[in-house]
């Protein structure tokens, strides 16, 4: 139980530092950044208490906000993602989720791929809508969502696959 919590605390801290120290400064093609901290929300244990999950996700987003001076946009996006995660899990893992037996390190690549993509797009949609905060700039928002989502998805999938190999 102790090492189980330890893993999540370490993952929380490492992803936070990597996000604010490295990923926020990549600025590929001028404005494209990956937001890999959502891996923490994606990998949070499923059977756990949902209230704790919401609060922890909110806290992670808030800390990213404090580091990047962006008000509450990351907190809101993480919170929405955390709240709607059961739905995303259901649509991407199907029956496996119904039996409460999803193991991210043992699932097939297709399901994992869908899961990451849907979650990323949802998160980025909320994030950039609030960040730009001007619906007349919807094209700018969509451009940011699409390109950042591609970057985040590729990076997240690489990280997920690299770090799950050892546990098999």
């Amino acid at each position, binding site marked *: 139980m102790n090492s189980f919590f330890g893993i999540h605390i370490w993952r929380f801290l490492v992803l936070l530092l990597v996000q604010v120290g490295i990923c926020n400064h990549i600025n590929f093609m001028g404005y494209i950044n990956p937001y890999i901290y959502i891996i923490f929300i994606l990998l949070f244990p499923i059977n756990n208490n949902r209230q704790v999950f*919401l609060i922890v996700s909110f806290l992670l987003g808030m800390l990213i906000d404090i580091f990047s001076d962006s008000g509450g946009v990351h907190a809101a996006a993480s919170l929405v993602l955390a*709240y709607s995660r059961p739905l995303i899990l259901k649509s991407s893992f199907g029956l496996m989720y119904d039996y409460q037996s999803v193991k991210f390190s043992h699932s097939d690549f297709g399901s994992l791929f869908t899961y990451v993509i849907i979650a990323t797009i949802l998160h980025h949609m909320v994030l950039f809508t609030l960040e*730009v905060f001007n619906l007349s700039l919807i094209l700018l928002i969509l451009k940011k969502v699409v390109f950042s989502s591609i970057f985040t998805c590729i990076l997240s999938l690489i990280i997920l696959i690299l770090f799950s190999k050892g546990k098999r």
Partner: protein
Amino acid sequence: MQQILNFVLKNKTFLLFLLLLSISLALTIQSHSYHRSKFVNSANNITGGIYGAFHSISQYFDLKQENEKLANENKRLRASLFNMRQNASNSKIDTIQRFNVYKAHVYKNSYTLSNNVLTLNKGKTDSIDEDFGVITTSGIVGIIDNVSNNYSTAISILSKKTRINAKLKKSNHIGSLVWDGKSPNYTLLKDVSKFANVAIGDTIVTGGQSSIFPKDIGIGTVAQLETDPGGDTYTINVKLFNDMTNLGTVYIVENLDRTEIFNLQKQSNE
């Protein structure tokens, strides 16, 4: 009462979601108005310390460029010093403005968001306060917004919150500098009178009407001209002198007469 309690217990996840969502939305809305991002900002010891640790590594990567910039500035200052000695006898001083200048390192810089903020490594203990100007050797950068003991944050000119008074260097026609959020290399100078004789390539400098920046600090050059729908004013696309994507050392400028000017303006507004 029993029913209300049951309702709360039954929907506690959803209610918690709504509560946290409204907190984050409130903070978001607050952050979009000037001088309101009081609670969530990176001017504190934890974020400052962590950014400092990253900075101590990353500063080595552009030492060469920083050196080059400093050498260029020294050259320019030395040239103006020699010329000033020659002209000192026949020049007259018309205004005396008093400014303090402090040096600071940029710990965090962003230019991809719609409101960009810099974190600097000087704070209250270095007598930095709100509304000081931030400049580099080539032009203006932003305005100090939040201050903690050892760190401060500055709103970049690449932000929709700032409106900075600026003018054409050759004809003194004024306008206000705003950012459209499109490119970190360009900003807009709005409301420039149609009587101004503007040409592509003209220099834009700070106007001296604001009590934040000294007069005649460089901003950029005219890249494109557009007549507004009303037909009386120009909107000018300004190419910035500063490379906002690569800021190392900046200067913080304090106008020592700021409170006096501010009080006077307040009196005449009443």
